[in-house]
């Protein structure tokens, strides 16, 4: 019997579901190897209760409703795969703002928003609520890494994804260093690899969309960027765009 798979989206841009659908050359093979039984984005006939071998989940948890649905999926799934930076790290919706969220809401939606009293829980990664078995970072996740994880799991293997920074991939591609040679604010040294250093290949500085590499030396990069005359607050906000919740946690752990 083919393993039963579920594909789910919490709050996000649908990027990982689009990446899955963008595997045009492999899609029919994947459908041949697994049974996609719960995928609201792709089907109107779903089994929303039964057990799953693997649940792929994109997006962050923004409210109690999403937390409850995440917990239900976890109970059903043998393995839970967090797909993309929102699911792994909280993503862009969790970035620092200039003012408290209540005020941001007031700014975007006016008095109407304030009057309703929304459920405005901060966007948080899946790992804050449930056990995550495999994390595929990236905004969006790379097609190649998704396919690698699917292939590994089908073969009963533990998927291995890079645990080194974008900087290393960039060096291997022999790109000109945007940070050192061109003085651009590149997040490559602290960002986890897997994208093939895509942005620097286009002469564009890495914006850290894949989240922090393990044991990232962020304070050292901040020092370099300060020397490049970047404003301290801007540096902080820049480096915390995609992964503020996990960086907060790391910081706390460092202080403890």
């Amino acid at each position, binding site marked *: 019997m083919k393993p039963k798979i579920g594909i789910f*989206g*919490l*709050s996000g*841009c*649908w*990027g990982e*579901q*689009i990446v899955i*659908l*963008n595997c*045009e050359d492999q*899609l*029919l093979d994947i*459908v041949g190897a697994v049974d*996609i039984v719960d*995928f*609201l*984005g*792709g*089907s*109107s*006939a*779903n089994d929303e209760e039964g057990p799953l071998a693997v649940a792929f989940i994109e*997006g962050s948890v*923004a*409210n*109690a*409703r*999403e937390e409850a649905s995440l917990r239900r999926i976890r109970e059903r799934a043998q393995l839970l795969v967090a797909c993309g930076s929102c699911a792994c790290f909280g*993503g*862009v*919706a969790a*970035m620092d*703002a*200039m003012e408290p*969220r209540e*005020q*941001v*809401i007031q*700014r*975007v*939606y006016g008095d*109407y*928003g304030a009057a*309703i009293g*929304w*459920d405005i829980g901060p*966007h948080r990664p899946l790992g804050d609520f449930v056990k995550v078995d495999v994390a595929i970072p990236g*905004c*969006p996740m790379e097609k190649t890494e998704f396919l690698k994880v699917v292939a590994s799991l089908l073969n009963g293997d533990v998927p291995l994804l890079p645990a080194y920074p974008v900087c290393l991939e960039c060096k291997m591609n022999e790109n000109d260093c945007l940070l050192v040679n061109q003085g651009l604010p590149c997040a490559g040294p602290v960002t986890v690899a897997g994208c093939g250093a*895509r*942005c620097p*290949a*286009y002469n*564009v500085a890495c*914006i850290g*969309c894949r989240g922090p590499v393990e044991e990232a030396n962020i304070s050292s990069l901040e020092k370099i960027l300060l020397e490049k005359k970047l404003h301290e607050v*801007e540096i902080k*906000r820049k480096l915390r*765009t995609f992964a503020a919740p996990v960086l907060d946690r790391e910081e706390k752990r460092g202080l403890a």
Partner: protein
Amino acid sequence: MTRTITIDHLSRVEGHGGITVVLEGDRVSKVEFDVFEGIRLFEGLVRGRSMEDVTGIVSRICAICSHGHSITSLQALENALGVEVTPQTRRLRDLAYHGSNIESHALHVFCLALPDLLGHPSVVSLAGVMPDAVKTALRLKKLGNTIQEVIGGRAVHPVNYVIGGFGKVPGTDDLLALKKEITAGLADCERALEVLATVSIPDFVREPIRCAALLPEDEAFFFGSIIGICDGDGVTRIPVRDYRTLTNEHCVSHSHAKHSQHDNRSYMVGALARLTLNGSRIDGLARKAWERLRLSVPSANIVMNNIAQAVEMIYSVEQALKIVNGLIAEGIRDEASALYRPHACRGAAATEVPRGTLYYSYELDDQGRVLSADVITPTAQNLSNAEDQMRAVVTQTAGVSDSLLKQWLQIVARAYDPCISCSVHVIRATN
């Protein structure tokens, strides 16, 4: 007697939404297109961020329209800063838009809408009986992605778009490779047309559709500085800089999302609206498809938006080939992106993304930091119109069973190709 019809969670749409209809006897008392996507507050989050950072952030509003979000954001910044891009940059951006249009329409027409029209729950189930049709659709979808990758560096959340141009201009080899792919895509368009010609479009609701779209000024189909909105037999023209007089965004008590109305009436944006206003531009195979699929505009059948998307998809393949051939013939130049200097300024821009008109405006301080940002997505504009159409479905089909009505309401909702993930302006009420 009160009767409530609820669709908890719409399937085969991007994002989380539902439909609630309440009837008092034969009278429809409430139609809600509910949106329960978590709020993400992009316009508030980008305040204080540098103008170089914002485009990479707002791209994340929506994966499937990420090229459109990026380029519209850049055009608003460029309009604010007074930056003029080169004709080559404009043509490459136009090409990327055709890529997005091919990808998005191929996905929607074949993978999300066609299963409805042929009585299947999903494209996987459809692939079981029409494998060649699905493979054709997937190849076209891939072609759209390839174009977006070559110009933007990545299919979802492009990396190569910067203020004034590109990080890296694609080379002649890239364009030659694209040309080959697009030429093959033309043959797939013929195949796709054969499939669609066998599908009958349901006609359970007749309700006039008021259309709005940008009016193109040159060969770029998706760009323009004037919005046209159909009013009776005429077209009202509104400059993009005054877009708020069209969109009039407001919060409404019965809905969880901001709505747009013009002169207190809803309007529709998207492929059907574009072809209603700018259809005279459609020629070649796309024109043949138009006739063969019996599209007529203005249409009073919203489900025809799926057909309009199919015609546009073919048009985009043909246009993409034209642009690529032109760039190859003239020789693509490795232009540096236009220079700019931060200063206090404000600017707006609009483009036609697959689902309709997308508006951006920014106000910047003298350091180039964002003081305020406004984003209005096509789906936000369409919500009010979608509710009007759903109300018409319920009114015009009195006596049908709840299950059939539910099916029809979903077909109507999906006809708009709603992109609920375009979460700016999407409000979530408490549980």
